[in-house]
Every structure is written in C-alpha cells, then in structure tokens.
C-alpha cells in the first residue's frame, strides 16, 4: 500500500462481506472495482459492478436486515469503511449528510426500474410468442440458427386436417411456403414416419431427396416428438462444401426436444382458447335465446 492511500486494500476475489452477514458498516470505494453478487438457485449472479467513489453496503444499515448480497473485490480494491454508530451520530447532527447516499440509492432504484421494465417487456414478448404456434416455431428456428450455421432451415408440422407436413417457419432460399409432404414422402416425410434423426451428406445421391433451386450438399433432419407420436420435423441444410457433423445433429436433436415441449404447449393453449371461445359463443347464444 502506498504512503498516500487511505482505507484497506482487498486482494482480487477477496470478500468484503457475504450475503446473510450482519451489516454494521457501509463502504466507499477509493480505487479499484467491487462486484456485488447474489445467490440464486441456478448459481451466483452479478447484480452490479461498482467503481471508485461509489458506496455500497448502506442498505443493511438502514433496514437493519442481514446483507442482501455478497461484495467482493473484482481486482485489487481500496475501500474505506464507515461505522454505523458513528455515521448515525453524524447524521443526527447534520441530516443533510444523507443527501448523497439518497442520491446514490435513487440512482440505483432508477436503474433497477429500467431493468425491471426491460425484463417485464421481454417476459411479455416471450409469453406472446409461446401462445402462438407459428411464432413459437419461428422463435425456435431463430435460436437453432444461432447455434448451427446453415443456409436453409424449416420447421414442418403435421396437419391432421390436411394429412400432410406443412411449413410453419423457414429461412434461406430453398423453401416454398406451399410445400406439403405426406407421411413417408421425401426425407422429411420419412423422418416423421420413422422418428429417426438423420444427417445426410451428398444428399443428391439420396433417392428420397426432392431437388429444389439450389444444390444442397448436406442436410440435418430431426423429428419433433410429442408424448405419444411425432408431429413434425426440423430441417437444416447447407449448400457449401462445409458438411454438417454428428455434433450438429446431436445439438439439433437437443433443440428439438425443447422445441417439442414449447410447440405442444402453444398447440394446447391454442386449442384451449378455441374451446373457451366456443363455450363463450354457446353461452351468449343461450342468453340471447333466453
């Protein structure tokens, strides 16, 4: 520690206090950074990274509850601590001393408000997506595209009314929205029928392959399994020489597993809504008749 430095130095990773500890002082960062983390069932999450001049640990002083989070030095940090008793004695003499602390707490609440609004919005967006089958399929395909690089891709679901596989979401050039495949027809139809995920390189040699506008080289086709039956497939294809690997196939199977849950939920919700609408319609009609 240099001659002119004040406070106490905490080494990288050293804890200043831990969640659940009793809080008898607040802290002001003189230099370095401090990470504030909170325990969650899925592990510790960082809720803030604070820098020079910022205060922390003040909450436990005012609400007299145990520390709500853990504070640790992110890198070497120099911290000045302020004893609760001395602080309150000084505030008693000069209440305006809390102005700066209130300013800092207000700024923190404002930031939390913004984050809360963002979270709420994304939660609503997700809810809206997952009650609509087509939007659920588009969302899943977008996510799959982020993990597996492909030139074309689609999700096809089996329609009981049309007795065929219909495209619900797609990307790339190699797809036609009007495509309909009967069970057993083409690669997708065959995968739906057999329930086996397939990785096919040199796809033009495959007799089930129906040629489109581009020269497809490599194809992944994975069934979407429901509780009792297969009700769709996820297709991905590459035009380039860069072939899919077995890891890509396994990843897509994994995605298909979660996709099946989401799509089934959306389908069920859609059915439920239809039933509710029907009940409401019948009730209205009865009321009118009465």
């Amino acid at each position: 520690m240099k001659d002119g430095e004040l406070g106490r130095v905490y080494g990288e990773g050293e804890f200043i206090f831990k969640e659940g500890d009793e809080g008898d002082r607040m802290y002001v960062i003189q230099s370095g950074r401090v990470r504030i983390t909170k325990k969650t069932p899925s592990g510790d999450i960082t809720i803030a990274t604070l820098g020079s001049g910022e205060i922390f640990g003040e909450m436990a002083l005012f609400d007299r509850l145990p520390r709500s989070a853990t504070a640790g030095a992110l890198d070497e940090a120099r911290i000045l601590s302020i004893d609760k008793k001395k602080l309150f004695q000084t505030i008693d003499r000069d209440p305006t001393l809390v102005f700066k602390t209130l300013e800092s707490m207000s700024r923190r609440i404002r930031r939390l408000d913004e984050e809360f609004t963002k979270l709420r919005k994304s939660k609503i967006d997700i809810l809206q997506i997952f009650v609509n089958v087509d939007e659920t399929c588009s969302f899943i395909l977008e996510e799959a595209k982020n993990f597996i690089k492909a030139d074309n891709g689609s999700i096809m679901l089996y329609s009981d009314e049309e007795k065929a596989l219909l495209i619900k979401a797609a990307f790339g050039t190699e797809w036609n929205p009007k495509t309909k495949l009967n069970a057993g027809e083409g690669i997708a139809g065959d995968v739906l029928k057999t329930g086996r995920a397939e990785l096919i390189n040199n796809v033009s040699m495959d007799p089930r392959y129906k040629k489109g506008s581009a020269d497809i080289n490599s194809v992944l086709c994975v069934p979407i399994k429901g509780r009792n039956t297969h009700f769709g497939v996820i297709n991905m294809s590459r035009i380039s020489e860069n072939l899919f690997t077995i890891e890509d196939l396994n990843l897509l199977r994994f995605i298909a597993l979660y996709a099946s849950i989401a799509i089934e939920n959306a389908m069920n919700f859609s059915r439920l809504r239809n039933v509710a609408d029907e009940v409401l319609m019948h009730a209205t009609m009865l009321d009118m008749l009465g």
Partner: protein
Amino acid sequence: MADPYVLENGSEIAVIGGGPTGSFFSIFALKMAKMIGKELNVTIYEPKDFTKDGPRGCNRCGGLISELLVQTLAVEGINLPETLVQRGINSYRLYTDHGNVFIGTPSHEKTIATVYRGGGPKGIIGKGKESFDRFLLDLAVSEGAIHNPLKIDRIEYNNIRPVLFAKGQRIQEPDLAVGAIGVKSRTYKIFEDMGFGYRRPETVTAAIAEISTHSSAITEYFGNSVHLFLLPIKGVKFAAMIPKGTYVTVCILGKDIVVNTVNNFLDNRVVKSILPKTETYKVNCRCLPKMNVRAPKIPFNHRVILCGDAGSTRLFKDGLGAAYIMGKAAAKTAVFHGVSKQHFQKEYYPVYRNIIIDNKFGKVLFAVTDAFKVHKALNKSMFRVVQKEQLEPSSQKILSSVLWDMFTGNELYKDIFRRAMNFPMFFDIFKGCIRI
C-alpha cells in the same frame, strides 16, 4: 410579500477566503441550491496561490484530517486522492515521561490523512503531491464557483447590503458576504470595521515546524502513526509529530510558545529517543501560528456571516473538521432559510454554540490529561490499562477509545467526556495507582 432575505435564482454570494471553510461553504451552497432548483453566483476571493511552496502557499496548520472528517467527506462524495494525502495514518503512539503506548484505529484501516494545506515546505514543489486547500478550491470551482484572486480590503454596508472594496475600488454588492477567514492574517479587521459588533477571537500561539529527512527514514521511525507527546516541557500542553512524505510536521500547543519551543521540544530525552539516529535530519520550516481558543460573540449580521477560524472552531484540533461543520451550516442556513440576522440566529447559531459548549468539555478533558501528564502514578497506571486493553481482543477498550477520540478529533468532547465517566475504567486506573 416575499422575504427579501431569502436567496433567489441569480443571487450573489461573495466568499472572502478560499481556505477549507470558504470552499466547503461554496461547494455545499451550490449543491443545495441546485437541489431546490436555484442557481447562485458564488465568487471566492482568495489572493493566495495554494500551489506555491513555503509561506506563500501555506495556511500554517498541522495538516491532519481526522478519521471522522475523512469518512464524512467520503459519504459526501468527496474522496481524498492519494496524490493529495501525504500519508495514511492508522494509529497513534502516545509518549509520556514514563513510557509509550500504541493505539490502533478501531477498524484497522488507514482512516486519517496527513496533508499539506499549501504546496508544502519550501523546495517541495515537484514531489507529485497536491495542496489540500487547492483541491477543495478546485472542487468549489467545479461546482460552479468563480475564484477571484483579488484581496478584499474593506466591506461597507449600503442600505443593509454589504459592498466589497479592493484598493479603493468598489468590487461587488452581493446578497451575502461570507467571512471564511483565519486568525493568522489581519483580514478579520475588515469585519471588525463593519461595526456590527464582531470582534476577532481570542487566540494562543502554537508552534509548527517541518523536519526533513529521507522518506524511508520516516517510514522506519514514524510508520503510519501520529506520535503524540504529553511531556512536562515548560509551556507545552501537548505536541504531535505527524509523518508526511519526506517531512515530519511538529505541532506544539501550549501557553508560552516562543521561537525556541521547538528546539526545547526536540532536545527532550523522550523525543530524541524516537528521532532518526543514523539519518540526518534538519528543521526546514517553522512558524508560530495563532489558534482560536474563544469564539467571538457576534459572528453574523444581516447578509454577513463569519465561519471557520474567525468564528467558532474546535479547541486545539480538528480545525478542518470545524471548517466543514461551520462552512456547511452557513451554506444550509443561507440556501434553505435566508440571510438575515434572524435566520442566522435561528439556524446557524445553534451549531456555532454547540462547538463553543463542546470546547468547554474539551477544556476539562485537557485539564485531566494534564493531571495524567504530571502525575507519575496516574501516568503509569493509564499505560497499564491501555496496554491491557490492546492485548485483549475481547476488551471493550474504553480508555483506548477515549484517548483515540480525544487526540484524533474523532468525536465531540462532550461524547468523549460522557464515555470517560466510566466507573470500571476509573477503578482499573485506581487499582493501578495502588499497585504502583
């Protein structure tokens, strides 16, 4: 009808003196005004250039910022950079004729700062450290104050409004004139001559000297401790040695301080025993500044207020802490209430008076300290109690904390006094006396 003594948007404040009190006043007045949506025009008149070394930039002070002030400033958002702090202090060592005892900060942190008020002793320029007074003045300027290096030499009332003059020229007619002046210059005359009854405070003379040696020698001999001496040297109440970069500041308080007091002190057996033995050292800079020991009775009038050393300050120590308290109290009154004599009487005077009352408790505590200084049995017994407290982690450390707060300026004398009235502690000291 609106109160003419309430500051409005665009009101002008003239602050005479850009030391810590003037800067603290300006910082808080500007901050608080912004909070209630007012813009004030604050001008700080300070001819001294605090970046200069030697007497030209110096404000003649020990340069010790108490633990309480360091922490309070940090809560206010004013953190002292390492370029400003000469040395972080985490302990005190108390010496008497009969031994010495070490008292560490309760939090085991470096919570006390030693600084130079100006550029530092002559020849120190270029050592990479800043002046404390300059740091605060710059903060005030960054809050929106204007620094004017003019020396104001006269203030007159014109229709109950102060008018400022410099070299016969009328400079400003502000809504409020703040006298943030010390007792070391004759600026107080300006306010005495205004005729509202202000009289300069009673003062005593102190001695300050700078001993220069190598930085490594300072670390070796003084460490991060302020060394405090309660020695029976004629005229010396108590003395402190405050380690800084390549200097140690010697501060001596007492009744009959003269030029030779520093030499007498340095020649004392106990003091000699802790000074560098192998390294050479010399006394580089010395002065005999005045210290306020009794506050003026009338520190304000309509649109005029005095704070800092020219008003009430803490007895013998923590002058910078008093500058903060009084500068802020004046700012709060002016911004949130008004600038009439009645406003100051109601809002500012209670804070002013509290310091005066507290100093009365301080006088008693210093008298008790004197008794401990001269009484061998009391002295030895006190050491024994403190040593025992320091060795026992579970001990409440009552005497240690009383001494710590007493010499660090960490707490009001009144609160220290209350804590010192502790029967078990006195019983321990008494027991120690009997054993001796």
